[in-house]
């Protein structure tokens, strides 16, 4: 039932142009200032078209920086990120992002927020209205079209942000801990909705979170990052079919596996800190 609603809404959105959505990091490093520890070191990562990749790691491991580089908002110190073979240098509507804190324009209504990018890129008014309506219906907010962001709940705001990102028909959707500020119930609801949207649209998604549970629910592949310097520690495939039953045994097994990886990592960092103190 849910899937039907989402896919029919998505069909109202015209299909995206040629972009296939292969996002590739090649030897990407980032350091802030000459003497500082590298936030990211030699990251090699390829997100395949239509793949849902989730990056997890302890806080401060540079996972948000990774996303900012892919978005073109931060420049890599070394290496390149490319989308379908073209090197990324600036932000653009082919790589839209959902931020951790909702970054909706507070003076625009939900509908105007969703339509903003279409307006900026010169989409004609009638087409714009159709696409905005479809996108809002997709996140089930058609009744909140005229509301201002501060009149919406946190979960609704993030759904508007998702609609605003998806309406641009990006080749890649970037998500920077989009649900971390929400309560657990709302988060589960949004996980289900995101699954459903992704099943219908099959966009490449690069998703960053510190929550292993969230990663296993959503990902095709989980990338575990190291801290100090930020390096890829391990990649875990999640071979479960979508849409997933979040309460299944398989999910909790994989969660335990990935948690172990991160625990090792946290222990290693703590041990290093202790050694420094001695």
């Amino acid at each position: 039932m849910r899937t039907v609603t989402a896919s029919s809404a998505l069909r109202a959105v015209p299909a995206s142009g040629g972009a296939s959505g292969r996002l590739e990091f090649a030897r990407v490093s980032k350091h802030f200032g000459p003497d500082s520890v590298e936030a990211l070191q030699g990251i090699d990562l390829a997100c395949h078209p239509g793949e849902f990749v989730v990056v997890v790691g302890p806080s401060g491991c540079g996972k948000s920086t990774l996303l900012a580089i892919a978005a073109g908002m931060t420049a890599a110190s070394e290496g390149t990120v490319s989308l379908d073979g073209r090197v990324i240098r600036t932000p653009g509507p082919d790589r839209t992002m959902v931020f951790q804190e909702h970054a909706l324009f507070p003076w625009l209504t939900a509908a105007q927020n969703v339509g903003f990018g279409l307006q900026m890129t010169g989409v004609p008014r009638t087409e714009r209205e159709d696409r905005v309506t479809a996108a809002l219906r997709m996140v089930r907010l058609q009744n909140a079209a005229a509301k201002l962001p501060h009149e919406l709940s946190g979960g609704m705001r993030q759904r508007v942000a998702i609609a605003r990102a998806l309406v641009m028909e990006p080749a890649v959707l970037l998500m920077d801990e989009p649900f971390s500020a929400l309560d657990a119930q709302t988060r589960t609801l949004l996980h289900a909705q995101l699954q459903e949207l992704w099943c219908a649209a099959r966009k490449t998604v690069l998703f960053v979170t510190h929550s292993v549970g969230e990663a296993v629910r959503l990902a095709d592949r989980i990338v575990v990052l190291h801290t100090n310097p930020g390096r890829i520690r391990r990649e875990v495939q999640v071979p479960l079919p979508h849409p997933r039953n979040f309460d299944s045994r398989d999910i909790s097994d994989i969660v335990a596996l990935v948690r172990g990886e991160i625990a090792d990592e946290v222990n290693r960092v703590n041990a290093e800190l202790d050694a420094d103190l001695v």
Partner: protein
Amino acid sequence: MSTPSSTPTWSRRRTSGLRVLAVWLALLAAWEGAYRIIGWRPWLFPAPSHVLDATLAMLGVKTGFGEPLGPRWPLAASAGGSLGGLVSSPLVQALAISAVRLALGFAISLVLGTILGLLMWRYPFADAALGPAFLGLQTLPSVVWVPLAILVFGIRESGIMFVLVMGSFFAIAIALRDGLRQSPPILRQAALMLGARRWKLYRHVVLPAGLPAVAGSLRQGFSFAWRSLMGAELIFVLQRRGLGFLLNVGREFADVAQVVAVMLIMVLIGMTVDRLLFARLELRVRERFGLA
């Protein structure tokens, strides 16, 4: 706002308003009463009734509220005055002249302040060069500009304009710069991501994001402009006589009641314009942004 639930707030606001009014009426009554019982001399310090007489006299109506109570109270001992002279009365004339000066000077101030505020916000170099100086100049009382204005522009309208603009535009520039700095950088990033470029970015994001700042700087600028104008008019004696001039007339004729009356009018005008125009504008913008 028009929901039934807002009705109690309204009536509560009205009762608190009435209470404030009652306190002030009691104070005025006590002042007037003390005056009549102790018998202070009106040329040393006026009673509320004298101030009322002086105000009405400036409007071309002669009254005698300050006279001893008698059968002809509150008519003036010397009859005279008619409502027909209202428009040509000194107070109305002065208000009109001051209003025109204020509107013109404030407009110039806004243009200058906006340009320089934007420059300081956009270019760190401009801010480093001008910011501290502007902050310093903003603390200067506006009448300090008067001698310079007289020497450079002479005793003319342009001299008054100079004092008004100097007294207000620094504050506008600083308030605008500070306000724009508060607009969250994440909105800029979101706009870039959604394809907003160059002037579109300014027109659709930077400018609207700065609206609360603009509203705040307008309000700040107006209060500075108003104070500067009154100061300048007090000193510049020109053919066209503004409200500040009436204060000076009161002093020259040793008419204490008129001096107090003009001061009260200044307070009332400053407060009314701020409340009715700028505070409301600021509140509207803040409500729209979910900040109020």
